C-alpha cells in the first residue's frame, strides 16, 4: 500500500461526507414537496398521467402501484428489445435480442441490477439503449427512492398505514433529483472525454497498421445516471474500464462519488424526517465504518499481491516505477488503490459498475466485494434500497437490544412487535435463501456447469458471486461464467426479480404497520439510537447475520482459495 493510495481513499471519504448534508437537505425538499422549480412540468405530468398528488396511498396500494409500474415497464422493454431489428435508431442493423436475453435484460434493468450477459455495443441498438435501458436507469432508481421514502414516512408519522403517493414520489424523484444531477454529471463527463453521439461506428488504422472498429454512441448520458442511480450497466462491454466511459482519474473519482452521493445523503434526509439528526449521523457512521474496513482489506490484499506470482519471479514489490501487488486485470490508469476503492464502492452500493476485472482479484480482495453484496448492500447501498436495507437491520438491532433488557423494543417512538419482526424476517430470509438455493442447484446441474469456465473453489466462488450479485441487484460479475445461456439467463432473471420485489414488499408492509401505530414517548428504558454503543451493536448485528448466513459457502469458495494460494496452488 502507498501513502498516495490512502490519500486518495481519504479524499474520497471527505468528498462523500461533504455532499451528505447539502444533498440530504435537497432530497428532503424534493420529497416533502417544497422543491418547486419545475412545478409547471410536474403538474403537466400529473395531468397527463391522471395522478392525484393529494391521494395518500395505504401501503398496500403503494406497493401495488410499484408492482404495476414495474411489470408494465418490464414487458415494454422486453417487446422493444425483441423488435429492435425493425425499429429506428439502429445504424448498425443489429437484430432483435434473443428471447431469453431480452427477458434477463428487461428484468435486470427493471430491478436496478443491470447485470449484462451481452456486449452493449454489439447487441443493443441506440433506440434500445436510449428509450429502454436509460429509462429504467431513471425509473428503477426513482422506484428505490420511493420505497425508502415510504419506510421513512412510516417511521416518522402516524397516518393509518398511509405512506404517500407512489406516482408523485416517482415523478418528483425523477424530475427534481435524477434528471438535473444526470445532466450536470453528463456535461462533466463529456468535458472529460466521454463520448456522446449517435454516429456510425468508426473504423481506424492502429499504429501497428491493423484495422479496428471503434464503437460509438450516447455514452456520457448513460454513464451519468448509471452511477447516480447505482445502476451500473455499462454502455460498453468493458464497463468503466473502457476509456470512452471512464477516460480520466477525475471521471473515475466523480463516478465513485456519484455512486455514494445520494445513498449517503439519504442518512441525513432520514434524520431530518424522523426529527433525530444524530440518529441519521449514527447510521452514516455505521455505514462508513463498514466501508472503510472493506476498503482496507481489499486494498491490502491487492497491494500484497499474489504469492504464486512472486514465486515464479514476478516483481510484486511497490517501487517508484512499479505498482507492485496484483495488477492482473487492473487498468494502469487507475492502479491498485483506485481499483480496490472502486470495487468496494460499487458493491457497497448496489451499483455493479467495474473499472477492473474482479475475477482477477486475489481471493481476499474478491471476497470483500462478495461479502458487501451478501450483507445486503446496505453500506450506503443502492439509492433508496441502501437506506431501507439498513433500517431493517436497525429494527433487528433494536429488537435484540430490547430482548437483552427485557422490554418491548421501541424505535423512534414506535413499538417493534410481532408483525414488525415478521416482516423484517421475511426480508432478511428471502435474500440468502434465494442466493444459496440457486447457487447450490447451479453447483450440480449439468446445464449450469456447462457455462462454468473454472473448477474447484474458484468455480464455486464464481457461481456464488453471480447469484449474490443478481439477487442483490448489484450487477457486477466475477466473469468466468458464460451467463448467456438459457439456464443462466432465466435463473438470473428470476433471481433479480425475487431479490428486488420479494424484499421490497415486506419492507413496505413493515412501513405500513409502523405508520398505523400511535407514537409512544421515550422513557429511561428506551434503547438510545444515537450513541457509539448503538453503532457498535448495529455493525455487529450486520456482520453476525451476514457471517452466520454465508460463512459456510464462503469457506468452500474464496477462503479455501486463499489458503490454497498461500500453499502455492492456483486451483
Amino acid at each position, binding site marked *: 500500500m502507498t501513502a498516495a493510495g490512502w490519500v486518495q481513499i481519504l479524499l474520497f471519504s471527505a468528498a462523500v461526507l461533504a455532499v451528505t448534508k447539502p444533498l440530504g437537505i435537497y432530497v428532503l425538499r424534493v420529497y416533502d414537496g417544497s422543491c418547486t422549480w419545475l412545478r409547471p412540468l410536474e403538474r403537466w405530468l400529473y395531468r397527463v398521467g391522471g395522478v392525484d398528488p393529494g391521494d395518500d396511498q395505504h401501503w398496500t396500494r403503494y406497493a401495488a402501484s410499484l*408492482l404495476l409500474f414495474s*411489470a408494465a415497464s418490464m*414487458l415494454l422493454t*422486453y417487446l422493444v428489445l425483441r423488435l429492435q431489428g425493425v425499429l429506428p435508431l439502429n445504424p448498425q442493423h443489429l437484430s432483435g435480442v434473443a428471447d431469453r436475453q431480452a427477458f434477463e435484460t428487461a428484468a435486470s434493468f427493471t430491478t436496478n441490477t443491470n447485470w449484462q450477459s451481452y456486449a452493449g455495443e454489439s447487441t443493443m441498438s441506440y433506440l434500445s439503449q436510449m428509450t429502454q435501458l436509460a429509462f429504467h436507469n431513471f425509473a428503477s432508481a426513482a422506484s428505490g427512492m420511493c420505497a425508502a421514502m415510504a419506510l421513512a414516512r412510516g417511521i416518522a408519522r402516524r397516518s393509518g398505514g398511509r405512506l404517500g403517493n407512489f406516482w408523485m414520489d416517482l415523478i418528483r424523484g425523477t424530475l427534481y433529483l435524477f434528471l438535473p444531477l444526470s445532466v450536470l454529471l453528463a456535461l462533466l463527463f463529456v468535458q472529460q472525454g466521454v463520448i456522446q453521439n449517435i454516429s456510425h461506428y468508426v473504423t481506424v488504422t492502429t499504429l501497428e497498421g491493423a484495422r479496428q472498429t471503434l464503437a460509438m454512441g450516447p455514452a456520457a448520458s448513460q454513464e451519468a445516471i448509471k452511477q447516480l442511480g447505482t445502476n451500473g450497466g455499462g454502455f460498453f462491454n468493458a464497463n468503466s474500464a473502457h476509456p470512452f466511459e471512464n477516460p480520466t482519474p477525475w471521471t473515475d473519482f466523480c463516478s465513485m462519488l456519484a455512486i455514494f452521493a445520494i445513498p449517503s445523503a439519504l442518512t441525513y434526509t432520514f434524520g431530518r424526517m424522523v426529527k433525530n439528526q444524530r440518529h441519521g449521523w449514527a447510521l452514516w457512521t455505521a455505514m462508513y465504518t463498514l466501508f472503510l474496513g472493506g476498503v482496507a482489506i481489499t486494498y491490502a490484499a491487492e497491494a500484497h499481491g499474489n504469492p504464486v506470482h512472486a514465486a515464479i519471479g514476478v516483481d510484486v514489490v511497490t517501487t517508484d516505477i512499479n505498482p507492485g501487488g496484483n495488477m492482473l486485470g487492473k487498468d494502469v490508469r487507475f492502479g491498485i488503490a483506485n481499483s480496490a476503492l472502486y470495487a468496494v464502492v460499487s458493491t457497497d452500493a448496489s451499483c455493479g459498475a467495474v473499472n477492473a476485472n474482479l475475477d482477477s482479484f486475489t481471493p481476499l480482495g474478491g471476497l470483500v466485494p462478495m461479502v458487501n453484496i451478501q450483507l445486503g448492500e446496505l453500506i450506503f447501498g443502492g439509492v433508496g434500497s441502501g437506506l431501507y436495507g439498513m433500517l431493517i437491520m436497525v429494527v433487528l438491532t433494536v429488537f435484540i437490544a430490547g430482548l437483552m433488557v427485557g422490554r418491548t423494543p421501541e424505535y423512534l417512538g414506535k413499538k417493534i412487535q*410481532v408483525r414488525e419482526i415478521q416482516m423484517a424476517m421475511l426480508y432478511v430470509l428471502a435474500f440468502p435463501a434465494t442466493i444459496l438455493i440457486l447457487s447450490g442447484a447451479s453447483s450440480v446441474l449439468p446445464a449450469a456447469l456447462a457455462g462454468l469456465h473454472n473448477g474447484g473453489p474458484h468455480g464455486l466462488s464464481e457461481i456464488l458471486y453471480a447469484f449474490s450479485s443478481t439477487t442483490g441487484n448489484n450487477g457486477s460479475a466475477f466473469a468466468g461464467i458464460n451467463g448467456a445461456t438459457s439456464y443462466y439467463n432465466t435463473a438470473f432473471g428470476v433471481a433479480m426479480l425475487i431479490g428486488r420485489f420479494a424484499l421490497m*414488499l415486506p419492507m413496505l*408492509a413493515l412501513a405500513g404497520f409502523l405508520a398505523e401505530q400511535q407514537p409512544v414517548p421515550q422513557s429511561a428504558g428506551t434503547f438510545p439510537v444515537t450513541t457509539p454503543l448503538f453503532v457498535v451493536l448495529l455493525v455487529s448485528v450486520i456482520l453476525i447475520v451476514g457471517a452466520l448466513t454465508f460463512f459456510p459457502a464462503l469457506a468452500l469458495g474464496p477462503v479455501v482459495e486463499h489458503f490454497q494460494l498461500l500453499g502455492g496452488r492456483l486451483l
Partner: protein
Amino acid sequence: MGDVLYVAGTIVFFALMLAYVGGCSRLGRAAQDRTEVS
C-alpha cells in the same frame, strides 16, 4: 414459444407478488390480533 413463456412467466410473477402483498397484510393483521388478545 419462448416469447409466450417469458411474457406469461413475468405476468405470473407479478401476480404472485400482488398476492404476497395481501399475504403480508393478513399475516400482520393476525399477529396484531394475537398481540392485542394477549
